[in-house]
């Protein structure tokens, strides 16, 4: 028994020693690599900066290219060159960006990252997808599309984002086709990806808002709203009366974002939709259109059975020119439901600060509104 105890002590001690050696090795290697990186940084960064300043004026020579190709055989050097070029690509626009993308292709940096997409380590693959997106080389599109089939969410997100940054429309659309079969990314992520698209966005929206997959279609409709693409609002407006609730909501939201008052009647009509989500979004979009024609119907919607519809209607009323008069009207009536929601919207929207300034206004109407709102907000009976 005693023997076993000794054995286990020896084994345990050996394990501790090995662990200690490993930690020591890691620490030493870490310091060594850090010093190496610093050394390379001081040599390479000024050279890359110089090369980049030169390619603005002339073509890079074979000799200069060969030097960079040799340098990037070393992992640390490769990372330094890659990250510096990426930084320039992200900071600069115009012709220089095209030349920088060419430089990342000619040096072989893009090929290195493409090769890494075949690795088993999902983290490394996702990182390579990200780097390929940042390098914006169209040569990596097919490899990125292939990566989209992998199950890991990070890889899907980064490969689609990379396609979006590259801006190749066909590949990007194909990416969404792939995704529609395996859709697992959230709507918010997808809208972010579409918003980032670096190609012809208008053309993309035109093609994609009619996608068979209603989820994907609504993503593009919402993104078009974020892009404030007025040229496509007519196309979007068709979806306001669509049977699909997602598309309907996306279209109403986008029209509000774009601020196209031509479709105000359709939005007013949507306030009567049986879905409370549609009614709530329509109420908010009408506020964004800032057209006084919507005031009467919004005033009516302050008594909607759904709280969000009431709240958004109040939110919109106080934003529409002439809405303050409606506030006065409501506060002088007996509908406590409407009064409460209106005061809540006034307080939450920040408009209350403006109303405080009405206290000493020479305009009697404004002074009256101030009095009505503050007295009601303070819980006193008018």
């Amino acid at each position, binding site marked *: 028994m005693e023997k076993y105890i000794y054995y286990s002590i020896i084994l345990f001690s050996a394990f501790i020693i090995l662990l200690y050696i490993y930690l020591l090795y890691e620490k030493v290697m870490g310091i060594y690599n850090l010093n190496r990186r610093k050394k390379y940084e001081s040599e390479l960064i000024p050279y890359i900066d110089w090369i980049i300043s030169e390619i603005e004026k002339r073509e890079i020579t074979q000799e200069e290219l060969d030097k960079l190709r040799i340098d990037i055989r070393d992992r640390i050097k490769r990372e330094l060159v890659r990250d510096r070029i990426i930084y320039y690509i992200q*900071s600069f626009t115009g012709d220089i960006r095209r030349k920088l993308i060419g430089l990342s292709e000619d040096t072989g940096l893009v090929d290195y990252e493409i090769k890494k997409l075949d690795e088993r380590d999902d983290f490394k693959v996702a990182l390579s997808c990200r780097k390929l997106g940042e390098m914006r080389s169209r040569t990596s599109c097919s490899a990125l599309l292939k990566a989209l089939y992998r199950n890991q969410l990070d890889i899907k997100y980064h490969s689609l984002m990379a396609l979006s940054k590259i801006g190749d429309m066909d590949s990007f659309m194909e990416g969404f086709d792939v995704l529609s079969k395996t859709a697992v990314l959230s709507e918010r992520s997808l809208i972010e990806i579409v918003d980032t698209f670096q190609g012809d966005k208008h053309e993309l929206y035109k093609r994609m808002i009619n996608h068979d997959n209603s989820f994907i279609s609504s993503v593009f409709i919402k993104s078009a709203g974020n892009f404030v693409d007025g040229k496509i609002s007519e196309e979007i407006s068709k979806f306001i009366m669509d049977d699909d609730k997602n598309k309907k909501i996306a279209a109403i939201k986008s029209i509000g974002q774009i601020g196209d008052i031509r479709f105000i009647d359709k939005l007013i009509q949507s306030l009567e939709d049986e879905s409370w989500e549609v009614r709530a979004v329509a109420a908010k979009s009408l506020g964004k259109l800032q057209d006084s024609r919507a005031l009467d119907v919004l005033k009516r919607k302050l008594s909607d059975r759904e709280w969000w519809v009431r709240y958004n209607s109040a939110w919109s009323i106080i934003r529409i020119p002439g809405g303050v008069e409606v506030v006065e009207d409501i506060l002088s009536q007996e509908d406590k439901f409407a009064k409460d929601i209106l005061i809540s919207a006034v307080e939450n929207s920040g408009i209350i600060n403006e109303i405080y300034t009405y206290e000493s206004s020479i305009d009697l109407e404004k002074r009256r509104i101030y009095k009505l709102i503050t007295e009601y907000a303070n819980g006193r009976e008018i």
Partner: protein
Amino acid sequence: MNYASKELYDTYKKLTNLITKYDENLNLGMRDENFSHMAGILLKDLHSASYKTGMMEVWMEIDKIQELINGEEGYMDDKILLECLIRCKSFIERNLTKRSKVYICSRNMDEFKDVIRSLELEGFDVIAREDDEDTIDRIYTLLPEIIVIDNDSNNNGLTLFNAIREDGPIASIPVVFTGYKNEETKIEILLLGALDYLEKPLVAMELFIKLKNFMEISKNLSRNTVYDIKTGVYSRKHGREIAKKQFELAKKNKTRFTMLLVDIDKMTEINIKLGKSKGNDVIRDFVEVFKEQISNTNLIYRYSGDKFAVIIFDLEVKDIIVLTREVKQRLVDVSTKYGVDLGFTGGIAILNDEVNAYEDLIMLAEESLNKGKHSQRGEVYIHSSSLEGKQKKNILIVDEDPIILSILSSRYSNKGYGVLTSQNGLEALGLLDENNIDLIITDLIVPGITGNEIIKRIKDKKPSVRILILSSQRGENYIDLALKSGGDEYVVKPFSPVELDLRIQRLIG
């Protein structure tokens, strides 16, 4: 060297005539073999005369084109010859202006022959003329150091003296009288302020020595004259001394120092048309217009006859050009007032690393002025060296991101700007105090202070500093607020470097 030799002076006179004639022909596009030939001979003479007198600048100038003059290269290029002549003239003028002038007014020049010869041998420039209706104008033009008036039995000399004394600008020129023995007249003349009255028959040596002594005294007195009598601006000597001191300071502190040399066009024609006295009024009004346009911190002095040196410390070249245009517009009123066509040609030279001494800067300004005078008058010319080696503009870049700082810093250093960087807004304000900054490139979000606050503070401290905002904030309200706070340009990140270059150029050149 204080006095140039008579030989050199005679050559100079020929040179001046030739340039005038030659220049007209060249402007008309005519090539005259005679002129080329004459210029060749004259330059050869001048080459030897300058060597004898030790005027090495002239000697070296001619030496450069000696092969051309000697006909070794065959065809003589008119333009090269003309340029050489102009440069030589300019060098000689600078030396000859040191010659003292004696104006002798007499109806009997024979009596003064010996005195004139002695004075000329001594290196004085003697102008001997009979009294006529143009005497006052002539004295105005020549501004002699001393006047000798030979009084006759009709007291015409006394009349001339009274006229001189009544005319402010030349009243202070010392006058020596000669005349027949007449105690009453002698006392009257001396009471009027004449330096001496030498009785006839004249003793040439006595008059010569007295003139020399008087001129020495006059020279010492004039050395202490601070202001030019006619225009009220600094005299050449004092203006130059002040400018020189300022030049040294500007060189040391690397601040702006620009010389604008202006020459009034067709002043001789104006003097002929209006008379010298009115001509002086024109010059005075011309200077007044200039003085009104430049701020008090700048300096103006009379460089020579119709030339004025304007030293400008607070304006860039493009602003100086704008200023000269404004002066030209204002001169229209002066032209209308006198019924003349008043204009000027200007030459600009800027203090940069290539300029070591104030004299170098003058030479550059003169070169550009001469270029203007011989191509198209009425314009302002900038010396090419001033354009090539433009004053180094300083840029302060403020951004939290060290990489963007390093990229922009190396980019604009390579483009010839002085670049300072800071990652902190408060530190940037400190750098602004300590350095002569022309442009600040700042992000809207920087540690220590908000971008808009930094813009406001910069504008309060140094309103002339230009501000370019380089930010990733692309919202209209951000842009609006930044520009309203005092920003001059707003560039959104990511940005086109070419566009950024152009905007920087637009702001600070």
